[in-house]
């Protein structure tokens, strides 16, 4: 009894399965019928063999379905295409063709930028070289070794040129250059950018010896100047650089210029103008005029800070001088911090200890 039941049950299941298969087969047949109608219509209106070519090319261009090869039968390696520049007739790789053409023909943003910068640099070179030669002669008496000064000026100019070239290279905006720059120390990149204006590279400790006091003063006026422990280089950021405190800056100035400039209770008179100051004021203005005659690409900060290198009597005075010259934000800030370090003497624009280079 059970057997029979099971048997009929199984049969039922098989029957059900068969029915399902039949349903499926019906569906397949209907789809096939649809295809047949399609083909028959195509054959009757003449489009069936329209897409076919002659047997020879059909075999030739058949789709390849092998492993490791694309549908054309080619191995998927990158082929380098070479092309000849129509301007200079050089053989170039295809990927480098467009940038080369930009430079070769002198059109496009980058090449005009480079050209204008080159012009500016040359103009400045001639200007500073003429200036520094006169300077070197004038100040040789004041320094210990006149020979060294001449050497310094000469080598300094050469270094400037070399550094400028390097900086131009760094500052080009081509993607290849920037790729290298991206991973460099951020401050270093900023340093390069900022010091481009002043034209001074990051000096190391040995090179301090080579620089005249004049150059050191200039550097320390423009830049933060704090010597980093691990690289032994001066920080070329502005005075406000967040990495270094004013105490550090003061230490560096003491170290480099070799004398302490601590003054207490300096009375700072903002508005008066002494006779003594007129001389130095005039000098400062002259100096300012000279430096402003240099390349216009220099920022005004450079011009302003050079005016600050002139000798001034310690107490007041420079306030009035500075009130006449262009007020630069960094100098104001520095003087503020300086005054703070002196127990908050006042909010004048004097440069008492940091800039008192006597």
């Amino acid at each position, binding site marked *: 009894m059970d057997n029979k039941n099971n048997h009929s049950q199984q049969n039922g299941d098989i029957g059900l399965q068969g029915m*399902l298969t039949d349903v499926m*087969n019906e569906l*397949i047949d209907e789809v096939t019928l649809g295809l047949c109608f399609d083909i*028959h219509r195509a054959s009757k209106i003449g489009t069936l063999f329209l897409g076919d070519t002659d047997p020879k090319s059909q075999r030739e261009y058949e789709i390849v379905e092998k492993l490791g090869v694309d549908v054309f039968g080619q191995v998927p390696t990158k082929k380098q295409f070479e092309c000849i520049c129509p301007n200079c007739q050089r053989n170039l790789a295809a990927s480098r063709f467009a940038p080369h053409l930009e430079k070769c023909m002198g059109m496009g943003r980058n090449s005009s930028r480079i050209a204008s910068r080159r012009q500016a640099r040359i103009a400045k070179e001639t200007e500073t070289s003429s200036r520094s030669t006169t300077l070197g002669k004038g100040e040789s008496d004041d320094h210990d070794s006149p020979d060294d000064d001449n050497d310094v000026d000469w080598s300094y100019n050469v270094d400037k040129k070399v550094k400028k070239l390097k900086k131009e290279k760094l500052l080009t905006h081509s993607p290849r250059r920037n790729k290298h720059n991206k991973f460099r120390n951020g401050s270093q990149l900023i340093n390069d950018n900022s010091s481009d204006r002043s034209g001074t590279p990051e000096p190391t400790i040995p090179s301090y010896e080579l620089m005249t006091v004049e150059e050191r003063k200039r550097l320390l006026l423009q830049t933060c100047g704090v010597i980093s422990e691990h690289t032994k280089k001066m920080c070329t950021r502005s005075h406000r650089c967040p990495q270094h405190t004013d105490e550090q800056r003061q230490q560096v100035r003491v170290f480099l210029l070799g004398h302490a400039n601590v003054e207490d209770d300096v009375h700072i008179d903002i508005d008066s103008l002494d006779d003594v100051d007129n001389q130095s004021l005039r000098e400062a203005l002259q100096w300012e005029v000279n430096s402003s005659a240099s390349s216009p690409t220099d920022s005004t900060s450079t011009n302003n800070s050079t005016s600050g290198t002139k000798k001034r009597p310690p107490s007041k005075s420079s306030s009035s001088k500075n009130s006449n010259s262009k007020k630069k934000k960094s100098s104001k800030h520095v003087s503020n911090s300086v005054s703070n370090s002196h127990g908050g003497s006042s909010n004048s624009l004097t440069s008492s200890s940091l800039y008192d280079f006597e």
Partner: protein
Amino acid sequence: MMNLFNNILPQDRKIKDAQMRATINQKLVETGERERLKELLRTRLIECGWRDQLKAHCKEVVKEKGLEHITVDDLVQEITPKGRALVPDDVKKELLQRIRTFLADQSNI
């Protein structure tokens, strides 16, 4: 519905089978499931390349019989058995699964 299969005679079985088949078909059509299944089947067959294979075979048949004298019946006769054979197994399984699920839902409701 399955209880009907207990203690049944062969000739009755045939009638029952036919009845059941009719019922299944009716249910499929009424609910619209048949159309959905057909669409699914079409998509799957195009994806797996069945259609192109069969089309190539059709072209052979047409070349053989002659473009001018080909009829739909000729094509159907030649193509249908090949078509059934060329359907890949996973497509068949999927379709059967869907039908079975549909029937199971139907008996539950």
